[in-house]
C-alpha cells in the first residue's frame, strides 16, 4: 500500500461536479506536481485532502490509516488533529497580520505543546514552568525554521513589512513547524511578482532535497519538471494523465494534455511578440 492513497474522490458544489472520481497514490518522500488549466478542481482536491472541504465520497489514507471519511466515533478534536497530517501553503499566504514572522510560526506549535502538558491546572507552578520551557523550545525551533527559509533577519517583522516572497516563505516555515506528513502547496507563487517567485521555488526545491513529501499545484511547468517525481495533469475534474515529468512533458499520451501544452506555448509566443 502506498504512503498516500486517494481513491475515487467526488465533490460537488451544488449542481457543479468539481471532482469526478480522483484517484492517485504517492510514496513517502515523493514530490508530485498537479498541473492543469484553472477551474479544473486542483484547489478543491488539495482542500479535500486537508479537510477544508468534505468530499462527497471516496477515501483518503495516509500510511495505512484512513484520514477520510472520518470514522463516526471520532470527535471533532480528532478532525482538528487529523489536519496535521497535511500541511498547507496557500496561494495568498494567509499569514496572521497581528503577529510577527516568529509568532506566526510559533502560534500553532504552542497550542499543540499545551496539549502535551500533564497538569491541567493553569495555576500550578509546575505547569507554568513546563509551558515556559516548551515555549522557549518552540521559539528556538521556529527561529531555525525561519533561518532555513532565509529569513533569520526578519523574525520580528510583521507580515505587512515583508515582500510577497518573504511572506510566502514565512507561510512555508509556519506549515513546516507542525512537521506534517505531507506538505501541500496551492500555486505558491501565483500571487507573487515574477521577480519574487525564484526565492520561493528555491525553498521548495531545498525541501525536496531534504526528502519532504509534497504535493504542489503549480503553473510553473519548468519548475514542476525539475522538482517532481511525478506529474498529475487534471482536466475537468479527473486526472487525465499522470507520469514522470519526461513522460508527460515530452510525450503526452492524452489529447487534452497535448492541447494544454499547445495552448500554453502559444501564449508564450504571444507574450514574446
Amino acid at each position: 500500500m502506498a504512503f498516500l492513497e486517494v481513491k475515487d474522490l467526488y465533490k460537488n458544489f451544488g449542481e457543479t461536479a468539481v471532482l469526478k472520481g480522483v484517484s492517485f497514490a504517492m510514496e513517502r518522500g515523493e514530490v508530485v506536481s498537479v498541473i492543469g488549466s484553472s477551474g479544473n478542481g486542483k484547489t478543491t482536491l488539495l482542500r479535500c485532502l486537508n479537510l477544508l472541504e468534505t468530499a462527497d465520497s471516496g477515501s483518503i489514507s495516509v500510511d495505512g490509516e484512513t484520514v477520510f471519511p472520518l470514522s463516526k466515533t471520532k470527535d471533532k478534536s480528532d478532525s482538528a488533529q487529523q489536519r496535521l497530517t497535511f500541511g498547507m501553503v496557500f496561494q495568498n499566504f494567509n499569514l496572521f497580520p497581528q503577529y510577527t514572522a516568529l509568532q506566526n510560526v510559533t502560534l500553532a506549535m504552542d497550542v499543540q505543546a499545551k496539549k502535551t502538558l500533564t497538569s491541567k491546572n493553569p495555576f500550578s507552578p509546575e505547569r507554568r514552568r513546563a509551558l515556559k520551557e516548551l515555549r522557549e523550545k518552540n521559539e528556538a525551533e521556529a527561529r531555525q525554521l525561519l533561518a532555513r527559509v532565509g529569513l533569520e533577519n526578519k523574525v520580528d517583522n510583521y507580515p505587512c513589512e515583508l515582500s510577497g516572497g518573504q511572506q510566502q516563505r514565512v507561510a512555508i516555515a509556519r506549515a513546516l513547524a507542525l512537521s506534517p506528513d505531507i506538505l501541500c502547496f496551492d500555486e505558491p507563487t501565483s500571487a507573487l511578482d515574477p521577480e519574487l517567485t525564484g526565492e520561493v521555488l528555491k525553498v521548495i526545491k531545498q525541501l525536496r532535497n531534504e526528502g519532504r513529501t509534497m504535493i504542489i499545484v503549480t503553473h510553473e511547468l519548468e519548475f514542476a519538471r525539475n522538482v517532481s517525481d511525478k506529474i498529475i495533469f487534471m482536466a475537468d475534474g479527473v486526472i487525465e494523465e499522470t507520469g514522470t515529468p519526461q513522460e508527460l512533458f515530452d510525450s503526452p499520451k492524452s489529447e487534452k494534455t497535448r492541447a494544454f501544452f499547445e495552448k500554453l506555448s502559444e501564449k508564450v509566443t504571444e507574450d514574446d511578440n
Partner: protein
Amino acid sequence: MDKIQDILMELAEGFGYTFALFAVTLLFALPLGLLFAFASMSKFKPLKWFMKTLIWVIRGTPLMLQILFMSFLPRYVFQSTTKAWAAALSISINDMMFLFVVLAFVLNYACYFSEIYRAGIEAIPVGQYEAGKVLGLSKNQIFSKIVLMQVIRRILPPMSNEIITLVKDTSLAQVLGVVDLLNAAKHAVNHYVILTPFIYATIFYLLFNGLLTLLLGWAEKKLSYYKV
C-alpha cells in the same frame, strides 16, 4: 461666590449619574453586543431572525421611546407598579427609574454594538480561519487567538463614534426624572435664573468627551502597529 460653588456641586452630582449611566452601559452592552452579534449570525434560523428583528426594532425607534417603554413595563405588562418593584429590590423609586434607563440603554447600545461587531467579524477574510484550521486550531482558538484581535482593531473607530454618542445620549435619562448633568444644569438655570450652568455643563461634556477621544485615539494607535 457661594452660588458658583453650589451650582458646581449640583452639576458634579448630576455628572455622577451621567458617568454611572455611561460606564454601566458600556460594561454590559459591550459583551452583550458580542453575544447579540453571534446570535444574529447563528446558523439556528429562529434565533438569527429573532435577533435581527430585535436589532431592527431597537435601531429603528427612538431611544427615548425605549426608555419610556421600560418604565411602563411594571404597570402595563406585569400588572404591578414601579413602587412595588422598587420595594422588591429595596431601592428608592428614583433608583428604580435610573435602573429602567440603564436597561433601555444597555439594550439599545448592545444592538448598535452588535452590528459593529458583526461587520467587523464578517470583514475578516475566510483565509484567516482556514489558515487556523489547517494548523489544527479549534474554532474557539481560531476566534480568540486569530480573529478577535483583528476584529477589535477594525471596529475601534466605529465603536469610538458610538461611545462619544453615548456620552451625549445620557441626557435622555431625564425623561424619567433622573437628575443627570444636563437636568441638574436645567434646574440650576431655573433656580438661580442665570445661564452659566449651561456653560459649565458644556465644559463638563467637552472635557469628558475630550478625555475619551484621547483615550480611544491612543488605543487605536496602539493597535495599528500592523497594517491589514
